[in-house]
């Protein structure tokens, strides 16, 4: 049907089809067209997709046929597998599935290993597979609840966050290497919402309901937002108590996770960092005291460390990097790196590893990657000014070039 689908498998086939066939169909209404224009019952009797914050394992996913927000008897329901994948049997659903809410709760966030206490939702479209349920689809769903069409809601959310509609439908974990922002936005969004739900929960209101209410309040902010903003900026505009803390949390998560993703530890570091940020958030929620830095300090005092405080301090990038390294090792995650392919300069570079770690990824300073060439700055300093100056000057220029070239691979 679509020449692009052989190379790129869109999560929302409707989006691409829609773009390509705009002149033929309006692609409106029930949200996406999947090439078709009417919302007929899907030919397939199953509806599958992925529930993701990190991938939610063992989460309950159901199709909210009657729209009451609860998993009622008779509504299609399934548990997600290790990669967040669910398959709903919709053969008994009489009405068209498109436009119904898919809701995911419970399970374990596989990126942090923590129980998932949030509630995610999405509006089903005509696709029988690849239906993503994520924080961003939850936000889209909240806009739909305000009366927007799914298409309009997607457009609005994409615009407000400076993303494309395709970004919104991309599996954030799968996209993390190529488009980390898709991941960082989602995890920041979900956590800010959960924090504000905790801070603003009403008597007799469930945590899930409180989250849904925050998502809907945020949807109003999005609707009014005409320029691209960060999650933090949107959250700050909420009229809820502790909105500033929500923003602080979202901003800190986005910056630390982005830094972690760019570190040699990559996704493993990001997961460890997210875990640490969740610990800080839990500390705030448990104490019902929504000061990020103070919560971080309390955790550090208990653990006799300083990593949480450093993570929470966005003004100190170096400190954050340091803390990311700390939390990466604390989780016991082993990061496996590939050695540079070109071995020229390898033996020379190995002189650096006693103080900068095997492969140049530890110790005094990480030197693998772009930082490798910093060694040349020490050539201009007096040899007695410091151990690195003294050391660097023992190498010839061409040897340093070989070392740098090796480490930059």
């Amino acid at each position: 049907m679509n020449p692009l689908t052989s190379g790129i498998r869109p999560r929302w086939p409707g989006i691409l089809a829609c773009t390509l066939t705009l002149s033929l169909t309006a692609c409106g209404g029930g949200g996406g067209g999947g090439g078709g224009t009417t919302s007929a019952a899907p030919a397939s009797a199953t509806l599958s997709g992925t529930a993701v914050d990190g991938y939610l394992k063992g989460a309950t996913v159901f199709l909210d046929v009657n729209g009451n927000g609860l998993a009622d008897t008779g509504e299609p329901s399934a548990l997600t597998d290790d990669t967040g994948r669910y398959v709903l049997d919709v053969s008994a659903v009489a009405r068209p599935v498109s436009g119904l809410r898919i809701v995911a709760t419970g399970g374990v966030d596989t990126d942090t290993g923590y129980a998932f206490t949030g509630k995610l939702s999405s509006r089903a479209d005509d696709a029988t597979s690849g239906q993503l349920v994520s924080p961003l689809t939850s936000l889209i769903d909240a806009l739909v609840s305000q009366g927007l069409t799914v298409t309009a809601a997607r457009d609005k959310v994409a615009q407000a966050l400076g993303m494309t509609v395709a970004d919104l439908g991309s599996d954030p974990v799968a996209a993390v290497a190529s488009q980390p922002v898709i991941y960082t936005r989602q995890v920041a969004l979900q956590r800010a919402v959960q924090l504000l739900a905790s801070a603003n929960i009403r008597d007799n209101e469930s945590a899930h309901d409180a989250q849904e209410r925050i998502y809907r309040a945020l949807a109003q902010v999005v609707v009014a937002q005409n320029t691209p903003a960060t999650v933090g900026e949107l959250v700050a505009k909420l009229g809820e108590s502790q909105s500033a803390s929500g923003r602080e949390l979202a901003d800190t998560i986005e910056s630390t996770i982005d830094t972690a993703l760019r570190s040699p530890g990559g996704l493993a570091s990001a997961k460890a960092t997210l875990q640490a940020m969740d610990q800080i958030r839990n500390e705030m929620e448990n104490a019902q005291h929504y000061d990020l830095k103070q919560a971080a300090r309390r955790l550090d005092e208990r653990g006799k460390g300083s990593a949480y405080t450093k993570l929470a301090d966005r003004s100190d990038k170096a400190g954050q990097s340091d803390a990311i390294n700390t939390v990466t090792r604390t989780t016991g995650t082993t990061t496996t790196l590939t050695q540079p392919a070109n071995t020229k300069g390898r033996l020379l570079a190995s002189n650096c590893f006693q103080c900068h770690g095997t492969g140049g990824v530890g110790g005094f300073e990480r030197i693998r990657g772009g930082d490798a060439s910093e060694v040349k700055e020490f050539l201009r300093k007096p040899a007695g000014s410091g151990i690195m100056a003294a050391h660097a000057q023992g190498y010839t220029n061409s040897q340093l070039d070989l070392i740098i070239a090796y480490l930059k691979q």
Partner: protein
Amino acid sequence: MPNEFIPSRRRLVMLASAALGTSLLGGIGRLALADSDEDDTHFKESANTSFTLANTGLKARVVVVGGGMAGASVAKYLRLWGGTGVQVTLVEPNPRYTSNIMSNLVLNGSRSITTLGYTYSNLSAKYGVTVKEARVMSINSAARSVTLSDGSSLAYDRLVLAPGVEFMDAYGLTQNDYATATPHAWQAGPQTSLLASQLAAMQDGTFVMTIPKAPYRCPPGPYERACLVADYLKTYRGSASRVIVLDENTSIQAEKETFNHAFTSIHAGVITYVPGATNIRIDPLTRQVSYLDTVGNPQSVNAQVVAPIPPHRSTGSAAGGWLAATGVNNSPDGRWCVVDVLSYESTAVSGIHVIGDAASCGLPKAGHVANQEAKICADAIVRLLGGQQPDPAPVANSACYSPITGSTASWLTAVYQYDSTNRKMAVAANNGITSGATAIESATISNENFREMSTWFNTLMGDSFG
């Protein structure tokens, strides 16, 4: 004593013991952590990073004898650079290595000996090194096989010996005297603890230590020991405490400026440095020490504690030893193994490489240097196995920090370039030039250096064992 008067050294002690409770959860190869500061981060970052092994297509068997700094490093890098087809078996009788580096800090109570322990679990788990807890009984260099104490034998294509050193009977003392009365503690372990407890029992007494003629393990180490013991004794064991350093060398062997300053200023009046001491005799029962001083006059001291660092030699190199039987200990005095510094292959026996303190290669005998010798050797073996020649211009390096008091330290560093004319490694400076170059020592003795020392140590151990 009110808390505010607890000096920094004691705080360190308290930190170290406080850390023990949780430290066993630390890095995999690490038995326990030291001071509970962030410096351990650096070690563990390395410890939590592993690398995919190189894809070389090589197939070979390499046996490594000795699991110290040199042996552990060469085992790791042979796998890392040689790939999965290079089977590496590490033969080591002890289940753990106790680091000599930092072990002088056990003497003043600021570190416990258990914080210096490293196992081989990372080498096996992360790099696929086979660890064999056994002793070498004999080597058949013609058949290229090694017979072990458990009766088994291992065939090899290349053999790397990293046996370290053993200590000679000297000054009228025996191995038993070292173990029970006058510990040299120059191999970290029970003797280190014994010496620490002897020092802790002193009161306004005299501590005598000796330094053998170079080459010996860790050139700045004995002077560092003199400083740390002086600092400890004068602060805790009476202001009349004295340290007498009998150096069989005619001058300080490393960091001359630093230690001269330390002896004559920081620890002035406590340390008496006697260069060129000869005819040293030590009575293990009375702790009486006699010697001829710098100008040849006989002297005698009644010491409370004596720590002689006796001359050493490659382990197994004494007559009848397993190493001597191979003939690789071919230095004129038979104590060291002369090697080609491009490959660390023995100049006496082909197929056998010797690295670390046992080797005679022109580089200082020290852990950081041993680590780099191991890398040069590993690289050369990988090339040789692939039918190539060793790197024609290897570079080695040295960096070390020496504590001067319980909270300050100095550093020393050198880069060694290959001098193809003399086929030797030579110190280089000023853009790699060897002419007139010397190792460079820190301009200051500082707290900052002391902090950096932990990072250096932890990272070095991570690169070697992690």
